[in-house]
């Protein structure tokens, strides 16, 4: 008698759990989409430099470097809901760390790349601890002020050439692979490798429990506190991770152009990073990369016509903020959905 009850109980639990599948289908679907898009994107990024002219290889390199920076910005903007207007400073910190270490102190480039990443992480963590105490507009203003402070340091510092900056920065030494990074195509693939690794790491962060907390903070920080999260360390760490991507981007940027100057750290640069994120789409993982591509290519196209490209980007920015919150990525997703529905309908008709 006793036994049968227990059996029944076990059976009921069993059916229960199969009926209420603990699988998180949304996350699985998202992961599948991510893998498909990454695979397609990777093929494009590997093939493209082999078929385009040298000039476009250089532009592609720029797209990847900005893609790193703005994917970092988006960890704050799109995932955590914090708008930073000082992120160019961390790109600058990465850039100057590499530049100083290689050209003034003669350290190898690979070592300085690691230092750049660490330096931007640590400094950003410090800045983050101070700034994430605020939010919304205050946060925007505080990050702006910190960004300007680092910009001012770069302008004033005499060892780094002040306003003129530093030139003749070496690129990474790839001789152990029998390659010469001074060739733009080789360097492109090196940047692509860094990009893929960094984006894989970022992806892990975004889909982790930590990443979900960031989204919760974006949606409703008050409720996050109410269910027992201490939001502060999450935000500070998000700030640091996001700036670290900028630091890596900066380190690659000096190698790409062989030089660095304080202009890299202006708040215009931070603003343009926001522009890329918003135009590309802040709600999608690869949205910022799309934005970077759009920005670099359009700017190149426009600068043949006029130097006043800000006229165009400013207007576009306004329109996207006002009317198309999803940006390019959101637009593409809507289009894909509509096409899928369209083709499904056609099949149904037949």
């Amino acid at each position, binding site marked *: 008698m006793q036994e049968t009850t227990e059996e029944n109980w076990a059976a009921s639990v069993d059916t229960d759990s199969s009926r209420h599948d603990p699988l998180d289908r949304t996350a699985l679907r998202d992961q599948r989409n991510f893998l498909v898009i990454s695979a397609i994107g990777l093929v494009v990024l590997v093939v493209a430099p082999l078929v385009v002219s040298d000039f476009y290889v250089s532009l592609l390199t720029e797209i990847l470097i900005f893609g790193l920076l703005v994917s970092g910005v988006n960890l704050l903007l799109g995932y955590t*809901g914090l*708008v930073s207007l000082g992120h160019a400073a961390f790109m600058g910190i990465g850039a100057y760390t590499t530049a100083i270490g290689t050209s003034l102190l003669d350290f190898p480039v690979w070592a300085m790349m690691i230092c750049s990443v660490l330096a931007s992480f640590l400094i950003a963590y410090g800045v983050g601890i*101070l*700034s994430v*105490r*605020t939010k*919304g*507009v*205050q946060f*925007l*203003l*505080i990050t*702006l*002020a*910190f960004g*300007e*402070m680092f910009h*001012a*340091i770069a*302008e*004033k510092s005499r060892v780094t050439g002040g306003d003129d900056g530093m030139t003749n920065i070496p690129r990474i030494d790839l001789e152990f692979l029998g390659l010469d990074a001074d060739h733009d195509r080789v360097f492109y693939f090196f940047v692509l490798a860094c990009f893929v690794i960094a984006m894989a790491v970022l992806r892990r962060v975004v889909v982790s429990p930590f990443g979900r907390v960031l989204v919760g903070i974006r949606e409703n920080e*008050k409720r996050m506190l109410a269910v027992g999260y201490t939001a502060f360390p999450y935000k500070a760490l998000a700030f640091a991770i996001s700036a670290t991507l900028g630091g890596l981007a900066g380190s690659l940027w000096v190698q790409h152009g062989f030089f660095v100057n304080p202009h890299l750290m202006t*708040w*215009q640069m931070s*603003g343009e990073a*926001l*522009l890329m994120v*918003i135009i590309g789409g802040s709600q999608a993982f690869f949205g910022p990369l799309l934005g970077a591509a759009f920005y670099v290519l359009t700017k190149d196209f426009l600068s043949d016509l*006029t*130097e*006043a*490209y*800000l*006229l*165009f*980007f*400013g*207007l*576009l*920015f*306004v329109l996207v*903020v*006002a009317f198309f919150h999803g940006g390019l990525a959101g637009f593409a997703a809507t289009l894909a959905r509509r096409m899928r529905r369209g083709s499904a309908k056609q099949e149904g008709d037949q």
Partner: protein
Amino acid sequence: MTFFLFNLLNGLQLSMLIFLMAIGLTVIFGLMDILNLAHGAFYMIGAYFGYVVFQATGSFWISLAIAPLLPLVLGFLLQYFVLQPLIDRGRSAHLDMALLTFGLLFFVIGLIDFIFFETLGLTFMSIDKPAGLDSYINIGTFYPSYRLFIIAVGFAVALLVWVVLERTVIGAVVRAGVDDREMVRAMGVNVYFVFAAVFALGCGLAGLAGVVAGAELSIDINMGVQILIPTLVVVVLGGLGSVKGCFYGAMIVGMTETLSQAYVPALALFATYMLLAAMLVFRPQGFFGRAPKTV
């Protein structure tokens, strides 16, 4: 001693210029919850239009009287026909408005660059100081009379703003609105008109600052951004939405920038930011801002 006096006046002059900018920004924020990053653009529009009027008429005074009207009107149109409808359509006011006006700043910079530099080939321009204000006055040290004029304008505007806010009906509405936005909405005044009027006046003051600055500093493409940064620092220091904080904040920033430049040049660029960081640690809501309401 005279060196000190000289720098003190320079600091006061800078404070007043920043104050003209910051007062509009902070009242607009307090009343409408819009951080108008395009404020720097209205400053530029004032300066460039001032230059155009000056070229056409040859008179500083006409330019001073007419040029601020353009940013004033543009500000009204922007708030009444663009920003407010977007807010009403459910755009979360706060950050979207900051981003949108930020894009607008870029747009205006690009537009001015296109018109004045690419089309007309002008880079650094200035408005001539008017007769009587173009020399030096002996006040123990020889001091440019135009800078004294800037100080006077600043104080006059501060006084005027104070009188309007404290002594007039529209001032009462605005003060009530800064304290409690919902209340103004409930009061049944034509809120949107008041909003747009205040927005316009703020932009007009920014334009005024632009014209005034155009005769002392140079008119160039970076001027809007250059003034916007210390303005934002002032607004944060004083507490977003606080008029009193704005005045003291402008004093603190103007003086800190000028005096550090004169006495500890190595620190000049950081002094303000260090101040800002210190305040953040101890009083994130600003010196005169209230702690944010919870629940």
